[in-house]
């Protein structure tokens, strides 16, 4: 399936996705209504929670950062018509990269250098977790959807094992490593603001957000302005055409999956270097899966992904506010909304096309026929 060629681009890329999103929110509203709460009050609570309270915007942008990374990861694979469901596992293993670098070096090397190495570690470890399914798809023909799902579970088991048995802080009960030495980590924006004489409310927003924005621009350049990006997109349009054009399909697939995994791995810098300052169990918290919704909504374009990430950031942060304001709806409501968005913006993305096409032809079609 692809976008319609009957209607102009502003309709198919702008209006229809918004209509799909609107439908998803309508259905979510219906659920809230059936539960016996006022959907409009829920929305206003969520908007306040996401933007209004002190520090709220910081929290929203902190979640946004995660979604930009995982959204870009899924989107790059989509451009090569690969479905990388493994963002969750790649982010998790990326965290192992951060953790190992920090635990090994942080007592001997300057914090700044360790941080740089840890960022590289997250990318490399995430990439490795993407390369293996990529290789299996390219060389052995295993379906990437299935392998990446399996790799999510393998990653989870691996991380539990390592955190419980190997790199746990000695004498500690909860499965997490010791804190990284001070000086290691990405500085939080509100602390940075204080140095500049600005007064900002505390929030976990950190320099990773800047990294995410930079990576987004890099993503755009890579996909639309380089030879490699052209090869990736040709492969996505038609594998046969790509082969005839002399594009090396297998190596392109493997490189795409490496970059995709690396992008997902960057979630670890936001979570571990920016906030927790140690490696802990389950820090990915489903961000990898949300990345799929983000990529679908953002139509695989960095700008779209930024907007979609912002939306999901606001939903996550606003969702926590639901817990305080309502007795019968909680932050899990956001999971429901997320599912509906994936359904309407992803699986049913083209449901409205015939409707819009008919409406468009009715109003504008007469000119061409006359």
């Amino acid at each position, binding site marked *: *399936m692809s976008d319609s060629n009957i209607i102009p681009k502003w309709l198919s890329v702008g209006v229809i996705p918004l209509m799909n999103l609107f439908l998803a929110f309508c259905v979510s509203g219906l*659920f809230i209504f059936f*539960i*016996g709460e006022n959907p409009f009050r829920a929305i206003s609570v969520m908007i306040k929670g996401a933007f209004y309270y002190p520090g709220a915007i910081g929290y929203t942008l902190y979640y946004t950062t995660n979604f930009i990374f995982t959204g870009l990861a899924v989107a790059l694979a989509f451009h090569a018509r690969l*479905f990388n*469901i493994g963002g969750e596992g790649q982010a998790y293993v990326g965290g192992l990269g951060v953790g190992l670098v920090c635990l090994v070096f942080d007592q001997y090397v300057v914090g700044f250098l360790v941080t740089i190495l840890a960022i590289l570690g997250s990318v490399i470890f995430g990439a490795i977790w993407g390369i293996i399914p990529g290789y*299996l798809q390219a060389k*052995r*023909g*295993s*379906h990437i*959807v*299935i*392998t990446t*799902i*399996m*790799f999510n*579970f*393998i990653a989870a*088991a*691996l991380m*539990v*094992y390592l955190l419980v*048995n190997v790199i746990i802080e000695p004498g500690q009960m909860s499965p997490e490593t010791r804190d990284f030495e001070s000086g290691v980590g990405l500085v939080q924006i509100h602390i940075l603001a204080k140095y500049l004489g600005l007064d900002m409310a505390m929030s976990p927003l950190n320099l990773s957000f800047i990294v995410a924005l930079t990576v987004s621009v890099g993503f755009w350049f890579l996909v639309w302005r380089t030879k490699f990006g052209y090869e990736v997109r040709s492969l996505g349009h038609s594998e046969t055409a790509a082969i005839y054009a002399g594009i090396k399909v297998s190596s392109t697939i493997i490189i795409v999956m490496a970059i995709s995994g690396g992008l997902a791995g960057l979630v670890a810098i936001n979570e571990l270097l920016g906030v927790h300052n140690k490696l802990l169990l389950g820090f990915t918290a489903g961000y990898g*899966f949300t990345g*799929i919704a983000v990529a*679908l909504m953002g139509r695989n374009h960095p700008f779209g992904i930024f907007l979609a990430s912002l939306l999901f950031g606001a939903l996550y942060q606003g969702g926590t506010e639901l817990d305080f304001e309502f*007795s*019968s*709806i*909680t932050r*899990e*409501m*956001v*999971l*429901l*909304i*997320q*599912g*509906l968005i*994936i*359904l309407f913006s*992803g*699986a*049913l*993305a*083209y*449901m409205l096309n015939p409707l819009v096409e008919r409406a468009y032809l009715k109003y504008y079609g007469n000119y061409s026929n006359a």
Partner: protein
Amino acid sequence: MPESFQLIISLLDSTIRIATPLIFCAMAGIFSERSGIIDIGLEGKMLLSAFVAATATFLTGSPILGLFAAILASCSASLIHGFACITNRGDQVISGLAINILASGLTITLGIALFSRGGQTPPLASEQRFMPIEFPFLDQMSYVPILGDLYVEVISGHNIIVYLSVLAVLFTYYVIFKTRFGLRLRAVGEKPEAVDTAGISVIKLRYQSILIAGMLCGLAGAYLSIAHGAGFGREMSAGKGYIALAAMIFGKWNPIPTLFACLLFGFLEALGVRLEGVELMWIGEVPVQVMQALPYVLTVVLLAGFIGKARAPGAIGVPYSKEG
């Protein structure tokens, strides 16, 4: 009875308990995927039906009604899947994923709204559940060595849904390989154009297949919450739908080998639990996570063609349209 034999008996017993939901879901997967529809949503359908089964049973007091409600809920999820990827020709993987996430959010949200117990349903009394069935002649059989123990400890004493899972496998085998419907179903998963040319509706066949898949997932969900368990807990399907998916691939989309894959994966889990903290000769202690990861690792290895090739149905994942 020697201790090692006792251990094997109790391992087999837990294998069956663990494998039951896998078997239903894997058979559901076979129906769906043999007709050309990828079904990532097994997990979500199982979770949703587990919740509905527990809720309906709690509200009505009847596990039979709970079971029917579970099947109904699971089939509705199948219909959403069908509407998205058969009628609207949307992406099957995305649709399945949406169902999984929806089920996750929906069960917790509704659970909290209905019962205010943090997403759990109230515990069910034993008369509200499908309880273990004792087979006849247990006393007499217990004197027979080995076979008798197998009969008493492993074969007897499960709830009705466990036994239904055996029927589900036979049903799947029979329908897919011995009926006209099954022949068409396989054809529609390999070459839908051919089926269409023969004047049979591709769309109708695929809807029928995923509805059967829905019913089977409903049984799996009901097993979790009103037979094996006594109520619904958050995320209680805990990845079983994905293990079932792996088992289906491991069984190469064939019911009988898939049954054995489910039993193997069930056995691995039972063994993993049993081996926790036990020092083995030569190896030392086997971490429970190794056993947990093994089904996935084995499936990856199989898919990569290192131990025989798993070939998916030809037209899987491709939406069908007459215009081509």
